[in-house]
């Protein structure tokens, strides 16, 4: 047994040495400065496929639809962008989307933090398991089915309104409006946010907190001055993810909005599919991607890159 193990270990080391030699032959030390870029290459290439797609979109967006052939005209024009600027509805839908993205991301991060915190800090293994399972299960119920569940709960003849009726109270309009879309999105985004915040909380040593409380700070100021600043990378990461996912979401407004609270992704969908106007859809997409990227870049410059970035204090 033991001999075997030694041989195996030796083999392991030999193998490792071999890999080491191979790598150094393929990758001489003088290239060391570019290791980061090389590690990044596969991801950059994969996402490059989306960039190729954006290339198509840019091209389409500069051609007008010819209604007699339903193809884009050959000549270049700015018609699609002019149409978007000309129709106030696009501005309103865009504003509605941006506002929702802001509300949803702030609320979700606020709600997710205590959950992530308790998940890390609880001493009971049972509580932890319970919290983890409650976190993971909703992932497996698609947005559509979840929305149907909400209809049963929040509908005009749903569980809550039957309850109100039983108490002799007037029925409420709880679904198919803007607030219900926001609510649905928060519910959908919550697990993502929690998962992104957990590692940040886990990285905070509990001793630091105890020290702060030991020095007489109450928990609110410990949170404000110690825990939240240390968890900042996770909070920013969660914020950015929820913000961008909400900004481009299509399903939730479609099914909980009752058809009259479209987000910009719905307008893009309609242009491509209802109107068969790829040029207009492409122009709307370009505008949305630009806005999203600029906002993300601004957050990264102002607040650091969150989970993605380097821990500033360690350098």
């Amino acid at each position, binding site marked *: 047994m033991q001999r075997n193990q030694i041989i195996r270990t030796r083999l392991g080391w030999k193998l490792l040495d071999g890999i080491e030699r191979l790598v150094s032959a393929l990758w001489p030390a003088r290239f060391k400065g570019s290791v980061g870029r090389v590690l990044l290459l596969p991801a950059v290439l994969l996402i490059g496929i*989306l960039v190729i797609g954006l290339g198509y979109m840019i091209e389409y967006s500069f051609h007008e639809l010819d209604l007699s052939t339903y193809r884009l005209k050959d000549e270049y024009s700015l018609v699609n962008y002019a149409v978007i600027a000309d129709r106030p509805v696009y501005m309103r839908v865009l504003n509605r989307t941006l506002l929702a993205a802001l509300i949803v991301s702030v609320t979700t991060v606020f709600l997710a933090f205590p959950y992530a915190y308790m998940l890390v800090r609880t001493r009971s293994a049972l509580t932890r398991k319970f919290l983890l399972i409650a976190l993971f299960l*909703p992932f497996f119920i698609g947005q559509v089915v979840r929305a149907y*569940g909400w209809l049963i709960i929040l509908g005009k003849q749903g569980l809550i309104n039957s309850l109100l009726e039983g108490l002799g109270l007037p029925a409420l309009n709880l679904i198919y409006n803007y607030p219900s879309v926001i609510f649905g999105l928060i519910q959908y985004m919550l697990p993502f946010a929690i998962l992104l915040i957990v590692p940040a909380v886990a990285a905070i040593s509990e001793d630091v907190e105890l020290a702060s409380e030991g020095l007489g700070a109450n928990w609110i100021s410990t949170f404000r001055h110690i825990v939240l600043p240390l968890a900042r990378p996770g909070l920013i990461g969660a914020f950015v993810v929820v913000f961008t996912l909400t900004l481009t979401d299509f399903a939730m407004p479609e099914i909980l909005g009752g058809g009259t609270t479209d987000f910009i992704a719905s307008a893009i969908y309609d242009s491509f599919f209802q109107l068969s106007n790829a040029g207009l859809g492409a122009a709307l997409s370009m505008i949305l991607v630009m806005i999203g990227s600029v906002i993300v870049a601004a957050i990264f410059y102002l607040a650091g890159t969150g989970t993605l970035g380097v821990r500033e204090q*360690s350098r």
Partner: protein
Amino acid sequence: MRGARSKKIVLWSIIWFNIITLSLPTVIVIGASFTAGEIIQFPPEGFSLRWYQKLWQLDDFQPALMRTFYVSIICTLISIPVGTLAAIATVRYRFRFQKSIQVYLLLPFTIPLVVSGISMMIFFGEIRILGSLWPVGMALCIINLPFMIWSVSASVNALDPELENAAYNCGAPPVQAFLTVTLPAVMPGVITGSMLMFILAFNEFLVSLFLTDSRTVTLPVQIYNSIRSIITPDLAAVSVIYIVIALIAVWLLDRLVGLEIFLRSK
């Protein structure tokens, strides 16, 4: 201690609010799937397994389920090396245009899925790989890749760079340092990320819609198409099957590596 009690009350009331909003639709859907009636309702009308039976007897259900597993596994397998390397690169190495690259890496989230779906359909059609299943897995990996990168970089962040430096200083060659110090340290992130990638691929319908046809259709696409005309309780039954798969996965993970792996940072 009064402070500790108020902390507990505040945090736990928020947590309970979360748990209820997260679980309520799930409970409703599980209940509704056992209805004997024709429509999704809660409380269900009677009890029966008829909708499960109907589901299982559908010609296309089992192959579609298998294909869904297949594309989800491809998606996860691609994302593990690609995402892990990218995460290590963004956290550990300095290069020019760092922030621009971060914005670039987030493109899968800033491009609406409809647009990603259409443009990948056109590109894959152009290079004649549309119609195979593996490009679907790759596409699902692309649109969710930021989740993998972010999960792993959270772990890389938590890893003290001094540990790696120590390995180097003790004479460990770079690959060895990577395999023996860096990789084990980022494992929690890799597992969280893989789990997410798998789950998301398993549920994705919008991009898959454009990359599959009726011979290669996956389960979420089939569900999406079928609810466009009529919604019946078999939809709830599918969800329950998903939940069962999820529970098995969570249980397996707990037995194999322990659920705490999500929380370990060092």
